């Protein structure tokens, strides 16, 4: 269905149009009560009108903010649509953020209404309600356990949706009032530093960028996507909401967190986005599961994986491949790849994206070799996601692909800048920040250090501000090193130090699943994470991986000095609840180096172990502290001339 999005320049208008042209086709599904309850486009539209009506009655007006808090639920998506119809601005929040974080956002955004998923969220809000005078009403989706609450401000969405009263506002008029420069949505970026900033995205930003994306991938109304990523994250709004608006495909909401994989498998999405850690997690898991397979199976698996590794990518990139190889690959597809993809629910995937972090080339190629068209994109909330993107047949695991159509990229003294139709309108109530991000010619600074290679692909090295210098004067790019470490699968997180130092050192978080299964296979006994992390055999295991990385780095004139000289395995997992990671699981370098400064010192004072006690937050919010005496291990350094066998 080809449509020009000049007339249809806002979501409310598009939605109205969809309700006509996609009448009777599914717009959103939710697995509830054991089956996939489906809402058609027309039904969705009508419910949206009903809800908009209700919001209007409870005082929501053009330009007001409305907070959305919860997991991906149809009614929350519906609320966004309804708010937009009224010209109000939806502000999704991370469903797992603690009350104080939510308080800041709602306070800063001056939210009038809050639409939340369930009791958990309601409780959070009631906790902070006093401090939010502007917040008038709270609507909830799942009434479980809320019947007995007698707080007048809270009320169930169903109450509005079931009521059918006469319209005391002409919603068609409202819809037509919306224009392409209106703010479509406001997304708070969990900045790696300081307070989150509210990024304002106009309909023009989203519609223009998304329609191009749909062009590239030829998405259509028959595609299926599973909505499982946080609604507050720009990706969910583009890949699910916006693209389904533009190309009319169906959004599928899983039944619950612990049925996600099952639901994935049932739906078999044609379009799948996942951050690297999800892909990597899937990969590790898969390998662990295969470990227990019978000899024959394992042999077949390994054999055909080799085949795939050799021929999978050429075939995927439509290169010409010897007929025999094709046959062999075909056989492998029937015996291994096909079933494998099927078990992961990836059989029908036409396009798969990853972004946000660098992804291990091996993992990346693994999926492609299975015939999954996995591509990397580089993006930012400020750019309405797309800055650069791999194209079919032109994929390079080490880059983030060429610039996205309509986007210009330049690299000035190491830092990446871009401009294009997706560039955001500014940070909400934060002129200075806006100014320092967008310059007069409209170039946006990404804060990332990168280079453009000779086939025009952008290659991201690190956060610009993190790139430092070793005392030797050579460049020190911690993230680059950390990623290299993380690619091995048994290292979950790594934090490298070396700025203004003589040599590079790093903290390591082991990947519990992977290492635990390793421990099982080599019958290493352990009582828990801390114990396992402390085991010298585990240290050796990690040391081996680091050694590989060092050999690798030693090949690179630029990064020769960045080889890791000393490391230790942290006694606790870095955790967003302790502020060590962002909600999107990026390491908060500064905070960490403060909190663990004594460890860092220990590195450079040639201590061989160091005692540390840290405060931790448990799931239920209680605080506690754990302590351990951490060993520090030394690595040997390779010179440039050392040739690697």
């Amino acid at each position, binding site marked *: 269905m080809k449509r020009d999005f000049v007339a249809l320049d806002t979501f409310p208008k598009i939605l109205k149009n969809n309700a006509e042209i996609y009448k009777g086709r599914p717009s959103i*599904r939710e697995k509830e009560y*054991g*089956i*996939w*309850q*489906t809402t058609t486009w027309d039904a969705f539209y009508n419910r949206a009108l009903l809800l908009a009506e209700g919001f209007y009655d409870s005082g929501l007006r053009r330009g007001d903010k409305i907070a959305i808090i919860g997991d991906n639920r149809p009614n929350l998506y519906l609320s966004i649509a309804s708010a937009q119809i009224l010209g109000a601005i939806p502000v999704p929040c991370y469903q797992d953020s603690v009350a104080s974080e939510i308080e800041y956002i709602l306070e800063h955004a001056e939210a009038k209404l809050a639409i939340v998923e369930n009791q958990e969220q309601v409780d959070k809000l009631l906790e902070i309600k006093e401090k939010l005078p502007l917040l008038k009403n709270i609507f909830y989706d799942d009434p479980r356990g809320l019947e007995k609450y007698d707080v007048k401000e809270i009320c169930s969405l169903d109450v509005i949706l079931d009521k059918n009263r006469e319209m005391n506002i002409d919603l068609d008029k409202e819809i037509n009032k919306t224009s392409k420069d209106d703010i479509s949505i406001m997304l708070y970026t969990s900045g790696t530093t300081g307070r989150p900033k509210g990024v304002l995205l106009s309909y023009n930003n989203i519609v223009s960028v998304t329609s191009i994306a749909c062009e590239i991938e030829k998405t259509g109304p028959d595609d*299926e996507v599973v909505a499982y990523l946080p609604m507050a994250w720009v990706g969910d709004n583009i890949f699910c909401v916006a693209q389904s608006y533009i190309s009319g495909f169906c959004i599928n909401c899983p039944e619950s967190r612990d049925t996600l994989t099952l639901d994935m*498998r*049932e*739906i*078999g999405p044609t379009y799948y986005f996942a951050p690297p850690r999800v892909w990597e997690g899937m990969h590790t898991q898969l390998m662990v*599961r*295969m470990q*227990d*397979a*019978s000899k024959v*199976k394992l042999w*077949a*698996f390994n054999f055909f994986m080799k085949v795939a590794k050799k021929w999978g990518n050429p075939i995927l990139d439509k290169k010409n491949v010897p007929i025999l190889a094709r046959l062999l690959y075909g056989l492998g597809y*029937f*015996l*291994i790849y*096909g*079933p*494998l*993809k*099927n*078990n992961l*629910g*990836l*059989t*029908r995937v036409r396009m798969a994206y990853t972004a946000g972090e660098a992804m291990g080339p091996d993992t990346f190629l693994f999926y492609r070799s299975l015939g999954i068209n996995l591509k990397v994109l580089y993006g930012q909330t400020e750019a309405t996601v797309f800055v650069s993107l791999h194209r079919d047949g032109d994929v390079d695991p080490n880059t983030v692909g060429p610039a996205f159509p309509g986007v210009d990229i330049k690299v000035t003294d190491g830092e990446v800048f871009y401009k294009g139709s997706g560039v955001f309108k500014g940070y909400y109530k934060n002129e200075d920040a806006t100014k320092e991000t967008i310059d007069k010619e409209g170039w946006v600074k990404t804060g990332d250090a990168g280079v453009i290679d000779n086939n025009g692909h952008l290659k991201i090295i690190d956060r610009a501000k993190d790139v430092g210098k070793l005392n030797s004067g050579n460049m020190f790019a911690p993230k680059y090193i950390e990623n290299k470490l993380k690619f091995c699968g048994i290292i979950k997180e790594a934090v490298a130090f070396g700025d203004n130092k003589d040599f590079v050192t790093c903290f390591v978080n082991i990947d519990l699943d992977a290492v635990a299964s390793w421990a099982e296979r080599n019958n290493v006994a352990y009582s828990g994470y801390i114990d396992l992390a402390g085991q010298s055999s585990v240290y050796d295991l990690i040391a081996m991986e680091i050694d590989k990385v060092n050999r690798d780095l030693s090949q690179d004139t630029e990064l020769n000095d960045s080889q890791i000289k000393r490391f230790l395995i942290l006694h606790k997992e870095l955790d967003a609840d302790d502020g060590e990671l962002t909600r999107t699981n990026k390491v908060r370098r500064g905070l960490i180096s403060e909190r663990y400064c004594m460890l860092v010192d220990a590195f450079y004072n040639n201590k061989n172990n160091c005692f540390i006690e840290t405060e931790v937050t448990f799931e239920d919010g209680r605080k506690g502290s754990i302590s351990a005496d951490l060993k520090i291990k030394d690595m040997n350094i390779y010179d440039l001339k050392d040739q690697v066998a």
Partner: protein
Amino acid sequence: MFYREAGQFKTSYKKDQAILPIFQDKIAMVAMLLFCFIVIPLFANDYWLASILVPFLALSLAALGLNVLTGYAGQISLGTAAFMAVGAFASFNLQVRIPEIPFLVAFLWGGLCAAGVGILFGLPSLRIKGFYLAVATLAAQFFIEWLFTHFDWFTNYSTSGVITAPPMTLLGFAIDNPLSKYFLVLSIVVICAFFVRNLARSEIGRAWMAVRDMDIAAEAIGINLMKTKLLAFGVSSFLCGLAGALWAYVVLGTVEPQAFDIARSFEILFMVVIGGLGSVSGAFLGAGFMILLPILLNNLGSLITGGTISTETIAHIEYMVFGAFIIFFLIVEPNGLARLWQIGKEKLRLWPFPY
């Protein structure tokens, strides 16, 4: 490995509770039916049809019947053959008394009579369990066998006590050659299997299984043990009766009590145990096994010994092998071939993962 289930999501309970929810299973089932109704008739010779396939199907039906009782409702019975006999004699007698009755109606009548008798002999199941009940059913076995041998009325006063079954004609054309018989039996069996499968996945089936798995709990949630058990006896015996009628009319062509002695009862019990308690496919697998094994042994015997081996010896070996298999299955896989089949299927669905 053949199961590609991604994308097979269900948007309604109707779809989710379909008899074969997985697409690949639907295909397999259709393929099998086509095979039975088209390919076999095209290629099977009369020997195969008459002396292997038709008996196999008839006995499968009996096994299906017993499986309802023992497999689903958990009530063991050693009197299956007796209920078959009732079916056979009832339908025979109806036709003798009222010649113009079409034989299918007679079969139905046979089934119903068997059901009645079954319910009668099921009554003890309300007070007694396990092998006590088995004994009660043995009583049925002996009593009915005796009844049909000693009261000439049932055999219509024929001197020999052996009587040829009346000819069968359906919509004008006679069912006398192996092929037509095969079609007849196959259709009946397929329909019955379908019915049983439906019962098994409905309220009744669950009630049966509840009684089987934990009768106290079943009672506590309001299941009337008496009604449920007797219903099981009724349905089971109906199928057995039907099978009996088929056995007499189609397989033997004669109606004689000797065809329904205790040995037959055990044979069918074995089919159910080996095939798999509590599954429709089990009945067929078990029957197939019990039919083919003797043939196999015979051929093997003559193959190895070059024909010198006496049929008697083979019969004895057969006994031992059957006995051994029963014990083997009870030890290794109490749920029989059907379970093995299921496990295999699970493996295929998980392939290449081990779990």
